[in-house]
């Protein structure tokens, strides 16, 4: 029915847009996404030069500062680790068309939950790592899940728009953690808690430098393994389990899901909790693997928001998220030294805009015709 659209009437070019009747070939979405990123980088370059910077030098700098040698590659992976978990969190909720944009807050609450094990203290500082780390993982996931449960429950019970509620809870989470690190767990009046005992830190590659000298100075930590394992488990949940089937069905066609007898209300709450737990795990990994103390600034650094873009770029596929996270890890790592300082954020925004715009090419075919119509 909807054959050619009104674009035709508004442009003098003989371009016809028609809906795709068959699925495009498997390589096509990847090419489109890649081109979208390329276009975004060009647009970003134009804006950088507009703001008085040198785009080519900026990009070369980004590439060198993130993939130049094994040391910075390791740093890139360290930056990618929290993004993997945040993006997984977003992807599972987006799969159900639940717009959880509160991964940022759930991430911070996860870091808080994990830190509370050390700072409360729940476990004494002499606890061995093999007890410390699993307990902190559980605490981080529980705190994140709680932060996902609240908007999930409100959505299920009162049909409260989850976009706004999850976003509002981000601000609440930051204020909550600030209260604890200023008022209760402060170290000498600074805005941070004391450092965690070594047993509560995730092991890093450099910790094994005695056995493998090549690892000296590499800060890649166990969080990467946690992220990859979480991605694989999530892939199985989404594509190989009954629950995953329900999630996908609700996302694609809620009407059909309802007729099939799937309990949407229950799924909204559970998926929000799973999403929050994944983001919380990300917060736990960041606080125990990198920051080593509870402190708001390095934790509320926008990983939850970057996760949204990465999840979208990866078309919500948990395994692709790992690769996409490394790209964004590189952007964030290198972006710290670039002037003006807003550049990485702006490029992320442009990439997302181009990605969304490019989805059009997956749904429609553009036919360019010569001559009269």
């Amino acid at each position, binding site marked *: 029915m909807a054959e050619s659209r009104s674009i035709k009437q508004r442009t003098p070019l003989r371009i016809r847009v028609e809906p795709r009747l068959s699925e495009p070939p498997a390589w096509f979405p990847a090419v489109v996404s890649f081109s979208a990123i390329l276009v975004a980088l060009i647009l970003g370059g134009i804006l950088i030069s507009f703001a008085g910077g040198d785009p080519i030098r900026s990009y070369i700098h980004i590439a060198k500062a993130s993939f130049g040698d094994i040391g910075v590659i390791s740093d890139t992976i360290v930056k990618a680790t929290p993004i993997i978990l945040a993006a997984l969190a977003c992807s599972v909720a987006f799969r159900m068309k639940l717009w959880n944009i509160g991964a940022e807050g759930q991430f911070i609450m996860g870091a808080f939950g994990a830190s509370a094990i050390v700072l409360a203290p729940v476990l004494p500082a002499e606890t061995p790592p093999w007890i410390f780390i699993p307990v902190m993982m559980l605490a981080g996931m529980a705190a994140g899940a709680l932060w996902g449960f609240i908007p999930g429950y409100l959505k299920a019970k009162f049909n409260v728009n989850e976009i706004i509620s999850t976003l509002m809870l981000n601000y609440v989470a930051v204020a909550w953690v600030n209260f604890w690190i200023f008022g209760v767990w402060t170290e000498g009046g600074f805005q941070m808690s004391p450092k965690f005992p070594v047993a509560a830190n995730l092991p890093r590659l450099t910790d094994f430098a005695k056995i493998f000298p090549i690892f000296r100075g590499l800060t890649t930590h166990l969080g990467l393994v946690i992220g990859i394992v979480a991605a694989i488990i999530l892939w199985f949940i989404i594509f190989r389990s009954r629950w995953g089937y329900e999630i996908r069905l609700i996302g694609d066609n809620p009407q059909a899901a309802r007729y099939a007898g799937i309990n949407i209300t229950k799924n909204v709450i559970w998926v929000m909790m799973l999403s929050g737990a994944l983001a919380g795990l990300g917060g736990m990994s960041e606080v125990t693997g990198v920051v080593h103390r509870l402190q708001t600034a390095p934790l509320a650094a926008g990983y939850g928001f970057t996760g949204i873009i990465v999840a979208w770029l990866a078309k919500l596929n948990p395994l692709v998220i790992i690769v996409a996270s490394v790209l964004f890890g590189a952007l964030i790592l290198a972006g710290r030294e670039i002037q*003006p300082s807003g550049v990485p*954020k702006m490029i992320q*925004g442009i990439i*997302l805009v181009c990605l969304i715009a490019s989805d059009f090419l997956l*749904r429609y075919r553009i036919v360019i015709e010569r001559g009269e119509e």
Partner: protein
Amino acid sequence: MDFTVILQAGIASGTVLLFATIGELFSERAGVLNLGVEGMMLIGAMSAFSTTIATGNPWLGVLVAMLFAGLISQIHAFIVITLQADQVVSGLSLTFLGAGISLVLGEGLSKAGTVALLPDFSIPLLTLIPIIGKIFFTNQSVLVYVGYLLVPLSWYYINRTRPGLHLRAVGEYPSAADALGINVFRMRYFYVFVGGMLAGLAGATISLAVSPGWFSELTTGGQGWIAIGLVIFAQWDPFRAAVGAYAFGALRRLILDIQGPLVLLGFANPFYYNPYLGFFLQMLPYLFTVVVLVIGSREAMRKRIGAPAALGNPYVRGERGK
């Protein structure tokens, strides 16, 4: 604490929310959800401030803010109206984009010092009304008065004029509007632009009147998102939007002022003696937004009124049921 002073300042800070909320209301009435309000407000705040520094003319600042934010909104319009992409994701990306662009172009602005601000004035005679005169009509920014006018005018435009009828038709039943010869696409572009301009005005209201200056992302501090929540609370009605916006403005001021005095309502002020409790005060506007959403959503469910029927759906000519 003098409550009339707090309310007076609250009206001014509520004006920011008012502009953003009314703008989003227009866009949503036309069927386009635009979650990019926060980004457009940042663009507005940044460009108003930097234009005023460059030219010394705050009116020019307001104009540039509205045009720039309106322009940015057209990216969203193109993606969701012409390319028919998901409005939620596109709006989110607009927030990132607006924040990023304003951070890049606003680099160094935070150290720029003071600028010429928009004038404050009182309305003669009306200031003499007890309490109300002091709160609403004494030493308010010119933009506050613009806000007073905008509310009834918007209501009248939407509910009592022919273009307003077309606006509602486009948001409720676009294919019927199309059949009547209304250009659905053009109308949607236009009202997204209106929403963008008002969000830009909201940003300019911050940086040139309410809390002058450019403080990167802290300039807006999530008010764009609160505005989107208020549209739901307002049930797409300008008067309810005004009530919500001013109430939130007053709350923001109250939170700032409550930590000052030693004695509060006859008791020792806990927020003065334990400043860390202030973090819980900071949570209040955000928690309140959630509460307001619960109220708005429950009421909408009970009364069976709700969002414009076509909100969030792209209009495709010739497709049934949209």
